[in-house]
């Protein structure tokens, strides 16, 4: 693993570990809820996650139409008393989020490992098909400075066009073949805001399955890829602001 500079003012607003599974025939919401009962002391709030499917139809004859179907609960969302930890137990996988203040990768991984054991026991998945680490950052843009002075990964507007920007959404998918990983980097600026969101999602997808004993080492690799993307996306001046 590489070593990366420590940032005392890292702009992370959420760090999450996500594991997707192929569900077993016997997996039920009731089993997930029973596992959640055992976590009630730590996760004091519980909500059902519902799956809504909206189908949009576009037809030149009849015009656009939409149909929404409620497929019922597809999981449970748990929140810790201080609302800093959020856990999703779903039929298709599980997600552990740490909201700000983000602590350390080891803390997030330890929490995910403990909860994965509970989830895995309840859902009894046939195989793990995807593991991901995802970090969402909120980056304050210095007023009056161009994006290039903060970001190295950027968009370009043709030089003959006006250069002022009232908002943007940039999504780049980058393969890291040497690590069997993919990354989705999303940058977003909402109109009038001086804060840019940088979402770095690194994942490894293997339809044939990922062995249980490999997932944590794989997540370490994904986190390393994330750091490469993070540190490679900012200028030295911007990184200095996070120290």
């Amino acid at each position, binding site marked *: 693993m590489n070593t990366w500079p420590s940032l005392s003012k890292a702009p992370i607003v*959420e760090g999450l570990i996500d594991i997707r599974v192929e569900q077993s025939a016997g997996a039920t919401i009731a089993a997930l809820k029973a596992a959640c009962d055992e976590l009630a002391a730590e996760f004091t709030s519980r909500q059902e996650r519902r799956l809504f499917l909206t189908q949009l139809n576009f037809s030149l004859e009849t015009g656009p139409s939409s149909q929404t179907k409620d497929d019922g609960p597809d999981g449970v969302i748990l929140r810790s008393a201080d609302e800093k930890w959020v856990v999703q137990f779903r039929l298709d996988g599980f997600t552990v989020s740490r909201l700000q203040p983000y602590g350390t990768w080891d803390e997030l991984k330890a929490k995910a490992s403990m909860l994965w054991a509970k989830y895995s026991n309840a859902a009894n998945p046939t195989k793990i098909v995807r593991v991901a680490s995802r970090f969402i950052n909120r980056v304050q843009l210095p007023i009056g400075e161009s994006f290039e002075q903060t970001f190295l990964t950027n968009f370009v507007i043709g030089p003959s066009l006006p250069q002022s920007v009232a908002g943007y959404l940039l999504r780049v998918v980058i393969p890291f073949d040497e690590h069997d990983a993919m990354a989705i980097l999303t940058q977003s600026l909402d109109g009038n805001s001086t804060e840019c969101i940088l979402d770095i999602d690194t994942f490894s997808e293997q339809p044939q399955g990922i062995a249980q004993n490999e997932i944590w080492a794989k997540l370490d690799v994904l986190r390393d890829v994330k750091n490469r993307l993070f540190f490679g996306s900012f200028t030295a001046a911007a990184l200095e602001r996070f120290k």
Partner: protein
Amino acid sequence: MGASTQSVQLQRQLNELTGYYALPASSRRDPRRDRFRSLAQQWRNETQWLSSTTEVAMNPAYQAIIGMGAEALPMILEDLRQNSGHWFWALKAISNEDPVVPRDRGSIKKMKGAWLQWGQTKGLVRA
């Protein structure tokens, strides 16, 4: 909305992205938090000219917040930290505790400090 195949393809891609960007917990609106915000705003609007603490605490929106129970505690403490306000009655009613020592009663600053300290000890609000 365009009518071309490419336009439909873009729309389909955008639909798929909705689920992708809805996964992180920070993208999800918490209905309890929305309810708390709305009730707290209503309470402030309706009691801003009242001087009686009893009237302030008897306000229906304030009582509805008390009715939310323990899950309202982190939100009340965060609001207390950011905006102050007479949250002490609600905190005491919900938690059945009172960390304010008798000599500090009446000093808003010290009462606020005592409750925030209490919240930190209980892990309900950040240090």
